[in-house]
């Protein structure tokens, strides 16, 4: 079985390194970061923390080198989905492509380029320490499901099984929208609040007025999900309160706050923007998400204001 990870940042590297350890899998790592690719080719792909692993995926920055694959796992930032799949789609003409990205709309983008798409939501996280070396911070589950009827569930199960055997526990389900929307609502309701205020997750949650704003965002997200017939697999409110505990993620600076501090483009279009778009499709208003979307876009615009 040949699996290519498209976009080998932290999360993509976790998949690529672990999958490369399986005897029945030929793992490929596609990434535009040539230093990272060169390091993987030279020394392998090293993970530390959640597991100490050195994997040896075949790595390239040249999409033309990719052979025909059974599976793709797209792990780029959401704003890079379109160019990433446009460059690599030829390798997946006979395979299935899964997304393990944040936000809403990635599956739709993939489906414009490939026939069989797998919806995925993943919780493992880490950070790129240096080329070829990733810190594995968070272990967690991945859920995969067919995007539409063109993707056979048996293929989804084959990918989930490979990931699980590789140490990345994954489940295959008929409808993977529940976990996806749970994560999206969680992220859309907390990340931008951290980004706009500069507060850690715990400090956002301990301010009753701000926690109420978070709940307002969650409520809109749930209403949009419900209108689409999506059953959340857990209440995002519970996850938010759980993460606010001192021993969990009280001091965690949301990735969007880190992005804003480093003046990197955020995934806001695919989080709050995604909730607004899916809401509009069915006439469900999401005014708070819309406001937050506009404010974070404003933050990004300020970086280039002349």
């Amino acid at each position, binding site marked *: 079985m040949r699996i290519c990870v498209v976009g080998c940042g932290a999360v993509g590297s976790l998949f690529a390194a672990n999958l490369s350890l399986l005897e029945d899998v030929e793992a490929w790592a596609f990434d535009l970061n040539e230093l990272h690719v060169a390091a993987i080719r030279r020394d392998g792909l090293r993970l530390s923390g959640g597991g100490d692993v050195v994997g040896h995926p075949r790595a390239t920055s040249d999409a033309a080198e990719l052979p025909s694959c059974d599976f793709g796992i797209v792990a780029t930032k959401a704003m890079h989905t379109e160019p990433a799949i446009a460059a690599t789609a030829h390798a997946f003409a006979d395979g299935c492509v899964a997304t393990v990205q944040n936000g809403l709309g990635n599956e739709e983008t993939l489906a414009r380029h490939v026939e069989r798409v797998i919806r995925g939501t993943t919780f493992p996280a880490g950070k790129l320490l240096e080329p070829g070396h990733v810190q594995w911070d968070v272990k967690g589950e991945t859920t995969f499901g067919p995007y539409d009827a063109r993707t056979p569930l048996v293929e989804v199960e084959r990918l989930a099984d490979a990931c699980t055997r590789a140490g990345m526990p994954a489940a295959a389900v008929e409808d993977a929208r529940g976990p996806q929307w749970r994560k999206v609502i969680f992220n859309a309701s907390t990340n931008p*609040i951290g980004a*706009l*205020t*500069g*507060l*850690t997750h715990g*400090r*956002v949650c301990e*301010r009753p*007025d*701000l926690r*109420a*704003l978070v709940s*307002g965002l969650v409520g809109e997200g749930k209403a949009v999900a419900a209108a689409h017939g999506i059953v959340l697999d857990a209440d995002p409110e519970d996850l938010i309160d759980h993460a606010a505990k001192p021993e969990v993620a009280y001091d965690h600076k949301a990735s969007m706050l880190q992005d804003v501090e480093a003046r990197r483009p955020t995934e806001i*279009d695919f989080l709050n*923007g995604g909730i*607004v*778009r899916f809401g509009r499709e069915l006439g469900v208003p999401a*005014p*708070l998400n*819309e*406001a*937050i*979307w*506009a*404010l974070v*876009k*404003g*933050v990004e*615009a*300020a970086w280039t*204001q002349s």
Partner: protein
Amino acid sequence: MTRIVVAGAGAIGSLLAAHLARVAEVTVLTRRGEHAAALREQGLRVSGRADLTAELDATDDPAALPEAELVILACKGTDLEPLAARLEGRLAGATVMTIQNGLGAEEVVAAHGSWPLLSAVTFMSGTRHGDAHVEYVLDTATWIGPYRETTEADARRVAELLESAGLKAEAFRDLRPAQWSKLVFNATVNGVAALTGLSHDFHFAETERPSDLGHLVRDLVDEGKAVAAAAGIDLHDDPWEMNVLATRRGHRHFPSMLEDVEARRPTELESINGSLVREARRLGVPTPLQTAVYRLVKAREASYSE
């Protein structure tokens, strides 16, 4: 010659004092002794829209103030209460004029003395370049109206005095419609600027794409207009049109709330957005977006200690 005390020598106080010194005897009350000394020794220089150096008297001691006909309280809203307390029992023959942003400045001053009171709002702006130098950035008008034991004629006399000093001014029979126009404008533009880091430019009027900031600005203005209507105020200017006009002036304006947030100073949030949100609650008008902006800026201030 008229004797005037200008209390508070930030950008607005400095602009008023320097211009008025052309037509009146001006004494500036400062908080810091060295600020008063700099003004006495160097005079007060104005650059930008005007080019002059005013000779004036200055002190940091309220007991040293001469009797005056007019006292202009030109400090920020956050400093008004202690300033009014310092003036209690003094300047018995003076008419006192407030010029703070937001609502409620007159009541704060009224509680500290029985002076006849005028209200003013100003659209001028400036940037301080040290204790004895202010740059005159926007030469827009100051609006004046009666508040307590004063008449429209009193307001007109002060407006004429400002005009004779080279500033723009207009008298009103009832200032509240103008004050509320500015309140809604400031609560919207200052809040959005503080959260995004954008100076007040074309982004605030852009409505082309769904995530453009103009939608949020217009929705915030609409909430403010609903509160004004419930308060029985017939707005003098449409705050959305004020916004559009201001973004077409062709140069950058940094709302004070943005400057305060960037310098990690307390902002005028309470007297501007806070008073609007409180009025809305009192009148039973829902303002979910303005409430969100208020909470986010409040939290941003709390993040200074992070």
